[in-house]
């Protein structure tokens, strides 16, 4: 019988963890964003834009950007971060609630895969033998640069930017909040992936973590390298740098992102953070019951008009 809340999940923190990410951020070129209005996706209540910007190693990254047609700017803003196998939705629903919303498609997603396309499965183990060249390096930075893009927008209130996502979106919510602690006001992180990564591979036979198990089946001697690489990307190592309040919600029988790793994240975050757990739930982590909780949490911190 598993007792997820009682499990010990430990990840060693590389001594140059902060330096590695400082260098990574410094290596990002100017954003050079473009915004193209998308009339076929826009509605009477929401304007939709097809956005492109430059990120780490000069790759162009796509995003959908939506703004409310009601209310007056500046708007509070959200970066919505996609799951591992999903493509970003056009985030109109968030703009109907009063947010400017940027749904980022980090490198490898369909509209950002011209130069980097490790596939799914594939991303989790792409160049995993070396943390410098690991495929997720640019992917993580693409989300950070999405925040930077919002900070440049005149219609966005730079003091009211939050992050929202589940699974990979939850995990990258943590890394992004850690790398932009001054900009992020709150994070909604459901069923967070990429936390306690190596421990997770021993707790589940489900993908995406199964990708690492498969990689090690073929390269068993790489386990020390893989362990070292992913320690630079593990949410548990980013957590101490997060200053924003984080809503965490977990399915207590999540086979994709084991709840043990979600509890470990909650413990690793400094300060108090709301934690919601849902028995008999898997990777959906309490949908649809948690959606009102998410909306209330974000509205409480970001205060969209009318809330």
């Amino acid at each position: 019988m598993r007792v997820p809340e009682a499990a010990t999940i430990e990840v060693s923190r590389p001594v140059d963890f902060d330096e590695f990410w400082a260098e990574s951020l410094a290596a990002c070129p100017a954003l050079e964003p473009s915004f193209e209005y998308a009339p076929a996706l826009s509605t009477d209540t929401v304007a939709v834009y097809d956005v492109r910007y430059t990120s780490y190693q000069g790759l162009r990254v796509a995003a959908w950007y939506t703004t409310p047609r009601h209310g007056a700017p500046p708007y509070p803003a959200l970066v919505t971060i996609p799951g591992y196998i999903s493509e970003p939705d056009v985030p109109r629903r968030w703009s109907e609630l009063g947010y400017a919303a940027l749904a980022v498609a980090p490198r490898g997603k369909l509209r950002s895969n011209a130069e980097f396309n490790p596939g799914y499965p594939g991303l989790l183990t792409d160049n995993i033998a070396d943390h410098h060249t690991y495929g997720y390096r640019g992917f993580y930075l693409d989300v950070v640069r999405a925040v930077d893009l919002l900070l440049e927008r005149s219609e966005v209130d730079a003091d009211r930017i939050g992050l929202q996502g589940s699974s990979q979106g939850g995990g990258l919510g943590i890394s992004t909040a850690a790398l932009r602690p001054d900009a992020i006001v709150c994070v909604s992180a459901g069923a967070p992936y990429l936390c306690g990564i190596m421990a997770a591979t021993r707790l589940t036979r489900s993908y995406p973590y199964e990708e690492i198990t498969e990689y090690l089946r073929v390269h068993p001697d790489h386990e020390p390298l893989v362990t070292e690489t992913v320690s630079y990307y593990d949410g548990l190592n980013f957590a101490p740098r997060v200053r924003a309040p984080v809503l965490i919600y977990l399915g207590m029988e999540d086979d994709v992102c084991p709840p043990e790793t979600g509890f470990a994240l909650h413990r690793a975050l400094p300060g108090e953070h709301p934690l919601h757990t849902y028995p008999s739930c898997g990777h959906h982590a309490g949908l649809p019951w948690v959606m009102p909780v998410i909306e209330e949490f974000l509205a409480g911190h970001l205060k969209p008009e009318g809330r």
Partner: protein
Amino acid sequence: MTDFDRYWETVDDELRRLPARPVLEKVPARTTDDYTFYDVWLTSAGPYRIFGYLSVPTGPGPFPAVLETPRYGSVNQVPHHNDRLRYLVFTVAHRGQRRADTPFAAAYPGLFTRGIEAPVSYVYRGIVADCLRGAEFLLSRDDVDRDRVAVSGDDELALFTAARRPGFTALRVDGPLFYRILESQPEELADHLRVHPDAAGAVADTLSYFDPVRHAPDVAATTLLAADDASWYEPLAGALPDAAIYPLTHEDAADNNTLDAWLAGQLGVEPMTRFR
């Protein structure tokens, strides 16, 4: 013959004229003592080269088998370890999905309404053909137990496949995509009709060829429909010869266990949970 029958007969004819010419490549990283895993390529209607994941249990066989039809999205999950242990599993990637995205890469949003202005141009004509080709590939294997073959999917692609390819003993559909779609109007369809309001009639005509109620009488398999609202699904269940509805609780681990147990029971193997 009705237009509906003629439309689908034409798809079958096209597939009959095109040999599948399967190519299998063993994948050592996904192969264990319990099963052998292959990447598979097949020719489908078009002609178009589609992709699939095949896992074959270790042992003499024949094995209970499951055809997994593709989800709506660019990526299909690789068959799960639990399923590989119990079944011979084949998962189809339809044209446009990853691994089957040359020369056509599907857009999301966008795929659902591609070519929807006419039945013959609608992208789902080819997608259904891809599922049928996958069924033919699975059902042609000597190591498949003919008395224990299921088709399972997130949506009615599994139902269309069971309707048009006899040989499946069980059918599981985990949710609707086409059923009563003009009422439910998912975002992509609503966007299309907002931009092209004059096309509403043509769109309705195209989608009528993909109405699962029209396909249902041809399904011989014992069927389980998973649904949010059982009463909303009853017309479809009623059109199927042997169907039951499982009302989803949205406690998804519990739902997945129930759906797993139903399929396991149909195919004579033990149920398994993914959270152990």
